[in-house]
């Protein structure tokens, strides 16, 4: 829809090409200990069990939006492309799911964030984890801390987000990622 011909391949996602990327990367760098926990379809269902339909609604941040995102500290955007799904319960919009990746220590962590119509986090799901250590970020207890967070929440370590010792980098980067997605969500909402 929003995609012009100039959009780089990586983000011009049809689910089919999209899911070819992780295996391709895996083949390129042969990361150790890669584990796929959830497919995106499973993550969508987990985040919004009552949903009737998930509508793929990718977006692209304008230069101004990307700049605004960079200005809001610790929120450097990885790419201007945003992978997201609109959630429908019947004819009623029930929220959004964002797909994203952050670096754990050296490898990517793939995760998805569900955001309700009120702009608050519904849940965070780890889809794929490639490091040999730090798997603790998958702990439901740790992830449950994000429930209810909005772009106005501080989301700081030892303030409203707990760290897990031994998995500090993964925790910090997922936290940074969720914060960035919430700001992204706000920026895109302003636009529409």
């Amino acid at each position, binding site marked *: 829809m929003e995609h012009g011909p100039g959009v*780089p*391949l*990586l983000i011009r996602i049809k689910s089919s090409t999209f899911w070819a*990327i992780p295996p*391709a*990367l895996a083949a*390129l760098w042969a990361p150790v200990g890669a584990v796929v926990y959830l497919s995106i379809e499973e993550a969508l269902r987990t985040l919004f069990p009552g949903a009737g339909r998930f509508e793929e609604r990718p977006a692209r941040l304008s230069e101004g939006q990307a700049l605004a995102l960079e200005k*809001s*500290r*610790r929120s*450097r955007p*990885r*790419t201007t492309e945003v992978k997201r799904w609109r959630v429908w319960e019947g004819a009623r919009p029930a929220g959004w799911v964002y797909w994203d990746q*952050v*670096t754990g*220590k*050296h490898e*990517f962590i793939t995760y998805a964030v569900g955001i309700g119509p009120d702009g608050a986090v519904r849940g965070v799901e780890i889809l794929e984890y490639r490091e040999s*250590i730090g798997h603790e970020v998958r702990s439901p207890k740790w992830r449950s801390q994000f429930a209810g967070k909005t772009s*106005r*929440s*501080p989301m*700081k370590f*030892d*303030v*409203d987000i*707990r760290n897990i*010792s*031994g998995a*500090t*980098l993964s925790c*910090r*980067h997922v936290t940074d990622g969720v914060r960035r997605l919430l700001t992204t969500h706000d920026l895109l909402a302003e636009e529409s």
Partner: protein
Amino acid sequence: MKRSTAAFLALALAVPAFAEDGARIQELERKLGALTEEVDKLKSGENAPYEPKFGLAPAAAKVYHLKEGVSLGGYGELVYQDFHARKDDGTGSGKRRQVDMSRFILYVGYRFSDKFVFNSEIEIEHAAEDKRGEVSVELVTLDYLHQPAFNLRGGLLLLPVGFINELHEPPIFHGALRPNVERNIIPSTWRENGVGVFGQAGPVAYRTYLVNGGQAVKDSVLGITGGDKVKGYSSSSGIRDGRQKGSSAFAEDLAWVARLDYTGLPGILVGGSFYAGDSGQNAVVSGRTLEAGTTLWEGHTEYKRRGLELRGLYARIGLGDASLINAAQGVTGGSSVGERMWGGYLQAAYNLFALCKTEQYLAPFLRYERYNTQAAVPAGFSSSGAYDRTEITHGLTYRPILNIVVKGEFQDLKNRAGSGVDQWNMALGYLF
């Protein structure tokens, strides 16, 4: 006819060419996609957070967050001290105001591979060696990282005791000056040569090293001429001046140090450490070989949640052969070294910006310290009272960004002899 044949030929040649292009473009796109991801990773690598690791402070731990290659870090602090004109007993303090580039430090690390890591800290204290400063190497380590729970380390090591000894980068502690309990009871920065094991298993972290022992008596007692570079134990600073700092350290006596920390409860750290070893280094005093057995144990806890920061620490030292040490050091009466020493502090701080989105940090803090380096002295000597100290420090810590700090504080320094001099201090510090 000719024209259509040409067109046909062109088309026939072009079709496979198009197909080939398509495949090439697909391949290029795949490579581009892969490269984009790689660049992203490098970018986020640049952005690696400043996190303590294996007992090292954020800047010191940089090399552990690398995959390979060189890391450069550092910290520094400029400290201004202004003293009260009078002691608590009303006599003149005789102290001059001072401003000191008290520390300038560079960390150089090298990660050989995922298993082998070199790290070092080069320190210039008080700016100029030909004035009042000194250059020293404070940390040199070679690590073999086997697995998170079991790793080996050798070199000039920071002893894993208390908070400040390992985590002394200015932006991460409150106060322009380090807490006095962690200077005069735990002699930060306490480093000696040795080897050891360290690791982390879930919420439990440990470090245990075998190091050279201290040096309880001054150099001249050991027959070293050229001034007492190592001064040995004292009444005022306890075991502080018995540190050998890795410099041609005597290793007749060795010491063992171990630490355990538990972080399993949200926002809470609880831990303790233990140090034991003789410090005589075969000095012979009054016809006896000096043992000077030194034991230190320490417990510490920290709580951080919603901007509130609480810290508590308690340490005790037991010392053998105290009267022999006194004889060797040539001290009498109230200048005796302590047979027992103890100290502790409680500290509270609150970050006023905690619940705001800003990364700025402004925290008033209050610290109450109590310590005595002469809690017990051997028969025939007395405690002077000047080393039984109660100190209250209150101030502000401001960080415009994570890595830069401005601190100011007032210190009410009391001792039982009434010779305490109050002071106020300011500091400017950084880490990178």
